[in-house]
């Protein structure tokens, strides 16, 4: 690392015509011989629908994680980054007095800890914890938050027994009646992150479109100038980072090309890969870059909408996910549910591998993140709202000043509100809130270690 008195500004961008590419956290951003600059802590919520086969999720023991159960097996290489949290409950997901509609309730109130209003018209949920944090720290980044998804984003209509699709198709809520729909189209996400060329002249736009040029081509000058002033470690980091952007662009082009050739009539955005795993990877690659470049510190990822009946032909399952979860204890159906659950975790694990591979400060990007992977139902067959499957991945700032000790399963007391976890996470993000949702307090085990 170069010893300089002046540090590179954390908010430095590589600029070109209509494009501004943020930088990852570089050593050069830490002033030499002064107190180290802390990498920011990030939070993300990854939601999977229709519950999870808990027989293959919960390990036999609490405390140190031994061999992971079947569904979590893909996380084995990152076991020390995993904290499994058991017995967390969303009371607001229960019927209480509102009858059927567990799918609508459990997703609509997942990040706010409230019971949503049963309606298709005058929707009412609550501000979600990600948005509370975004409101607090969002000005420090280009985007206060990012909302990403892979499936249907309809905002109206009946998606579950009288519950609006707004509840099943959104995770983030800016206010009681303001859901933030997830971005589904990779191209749309890319352009949101790196610019859509709005400032280009018509000629430049036409050329860019025709040649499908990389955004990196527009920032070549800035890139060269910066590289000349970086040490070897930072040069490598920057190269890796720019390569990952270039790789995303290649994936985008491939998806768009495939779609135009294979299935021009498909009712999904032009740039969405037909393959679920590819779509997942493309979106999470961009989410990684967004975290890496500190474009945002808060993300939600609705893998598929709650109550989805999506089939997973990629792994040989032609039945819909939701019908399968009402398996009536039929072993064959239960087996398929477990396969879908495992398939989701497999994609997630690949994302975690990517996060962990990116060095940041003395650790890696995952060390400075809190990624919650979970569902609003535990048993999808009976629609239960207690002991929700909840996995925290990441160190929550471990590389800086202590953080979350992973490699454990913590079993809380029964009826412990999920809101307690979110309140504790908000603390760790530096957002102090006295009360949230139906929280009864903070949870133990995520405090500084």
């Amino acid at each position, binding site marked *: 690392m170069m010893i300089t008195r002046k540090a590179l500004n954390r908010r430095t961008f590589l600029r070109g015509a209509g494009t501004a590419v943020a930088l990852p956290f570089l050593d050069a951003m830490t002033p030499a011989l002064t107190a180290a600059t802390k990498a920011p802590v990030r939070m993300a919520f990854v939601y999977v629908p229709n519950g999870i086969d808990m*027989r293959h999720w*919960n*390990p*036999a*023991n*609490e*405390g140190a994680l031994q061999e992971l159960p079947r569904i979590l097996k893909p996380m084995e290489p990152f076991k020390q980054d995993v904290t499994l949290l*058991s*017995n967390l*409950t969303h*009371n607001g997901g*229960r*019927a*209480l*007095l*509102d*009858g059927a509609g*567990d799918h609508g309730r459990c997703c609509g109130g997942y990040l706010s800890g409230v*019971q949503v209003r*049963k309606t298709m018209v005058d929707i009412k949920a609550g501000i979600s914890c990600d948005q509370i944090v975004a409101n607090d720290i969002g000005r420090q980044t280009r985007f206060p938050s990012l909302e990403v998804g892979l499936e249907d984003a309809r905002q109206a209509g009946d998606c579950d027994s009288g519950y609006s699709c707004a509840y099943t198709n959104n995770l983030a809520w800016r206010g009681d009646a303001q859901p933030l729909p997830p971005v589904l189209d990779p191209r749309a996400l890319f352009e949101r992150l790196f610019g859509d060329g709005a400032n280009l002249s018509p000629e430049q736009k036409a050329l860019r479109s025709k040649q499908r040029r990389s955004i990196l081509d527009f920032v070549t000058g800035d890139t060269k100038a910066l590289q000349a002033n970086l040490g070897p470690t930072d040069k490598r980091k920057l190269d890796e980072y720019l390569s990952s952007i270039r790789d995303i662009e290649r994936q985008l082009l491939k998806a768009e090309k495939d779609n135009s050739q294979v299935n021009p009539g498909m009712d999904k955005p032009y740039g969405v890969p037909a393959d679920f795993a590819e779509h997942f990877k493309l979106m999470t690659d961009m989410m990684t870059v967004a975290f890496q470049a500190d474009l945002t510190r808060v993300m939600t990822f609705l893998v598929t909408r709650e109550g989805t009946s999506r089939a997973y032909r990629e792994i040989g399952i032609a039945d819909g996910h939701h019908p399968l979860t*009402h398996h*009536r*204890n*039929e*072993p064959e159906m*239960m087996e398929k549910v477990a396969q879908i659950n495992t398939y989701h975790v497999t994609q997630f694990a690949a994302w975690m591998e990517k996060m962990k591979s990116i060095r940041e400060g003395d650790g890696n990007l995952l060390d400075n993140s809190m990624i919650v992977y979970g569902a609003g139902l535990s048993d999808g*067959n*009976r*629609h*239960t*709202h*207690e002991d929700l499957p909840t996995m925290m991945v990441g160190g929550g700032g471990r590389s800086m000043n202590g953080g979350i000790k992973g490699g454990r399963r913590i*079993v*809380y*007391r*029964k*009826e*412990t*509100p999920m809101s307690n976890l979110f309140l504790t996470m908000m603390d760790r993000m530096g957002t102090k809130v*006295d*009360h949230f949702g*139906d929280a*009864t307090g903070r949870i133990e085990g995520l405090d500084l270690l």
Partner: protein
Amino acid sequence: MQFIGSKPSVGVLYDGALGYRIDAALGLAVLYGLDAKNECRVVSLSVPSNNLHAAGFTEVIGRFYAGAVNGSFGAIGRTLPVGMATGKPVQDSPMLKAVLANPAYAHGINHLNDTADPRAMLRNALTAHHDQNAVVVLAGPATNLAALLDLPGAKPWVQDKVRLLALVPDASDLPALRKVLAEWPSPILVVPDGGVFPGAAIEKNFAWSQSHPIVDAYRAAGTMPYDAPAAPLAAVLAAVRPDSGLFKFSEPGGLAVSPQGAVIVSGPGKHRLLRLDPAQKEKLTALYVELASMKPVPRVPRIRRPAADAVKPPVPLPPPASKP
């Protein structure tokens, strides 16, 4: 909130010194008797003592009468956990030792995380009720109810959902008792005396079961034969059958705690004191025995269970967690 179907029978949240006071156990037995008659629903059970065996004892009684601790917040087919306070740990009583030594009484409470935070339990149970369709019966220290009042956002639920708190004064946590008397939003019925439960009935009326946790608890709680105090039984009856005509009540007023620890009606207010009616003594005693010794009656879930659920038995789960 929407009303789905007809209004169910009143939900009862029972918090008592189970495992330490035989009258609290008898009160719960009476409550399950009324539950079996569909006059009420047991929707929450909690103990004010930090003792896993007391929580286990509570679950034993719940399983005995209801096959599980009973009830549901609205989700289909779930059982309730037992709420347990986490103050200073309390030693086992002879009653607890006697009952839990019997292998016939299985329960699943071995660790703190097998129990629930009573504040969350009580609050969540209330959220599932129609307005004014819940009653709370307190047959022990007021520790858990005082804690509930301190939980942010809980008081409005109590205000909306609870029509009565039937309280048997217990001065062993005086600050909590004073807090509840001062801050509890619903009317309170104080039950200082409920007459007695006849010890002779233990040998006679419970004989239908070879093992009965109430019988074993009763025998361990005192030297047989003896008659047990019955204030919690009266509290349950008065809460579930407010118009039974078995009791007399004071004029409404405020409540205070005397220097001796007794609860007295003082000044204006909406609370009352239950008084025994000598003319109803025999009838009352017979009712105690009848309800406490009732055989468990399987309950059909009020909310229709998806028929498909019952098609096949559940696939066995992995063995229970062996915890360090």
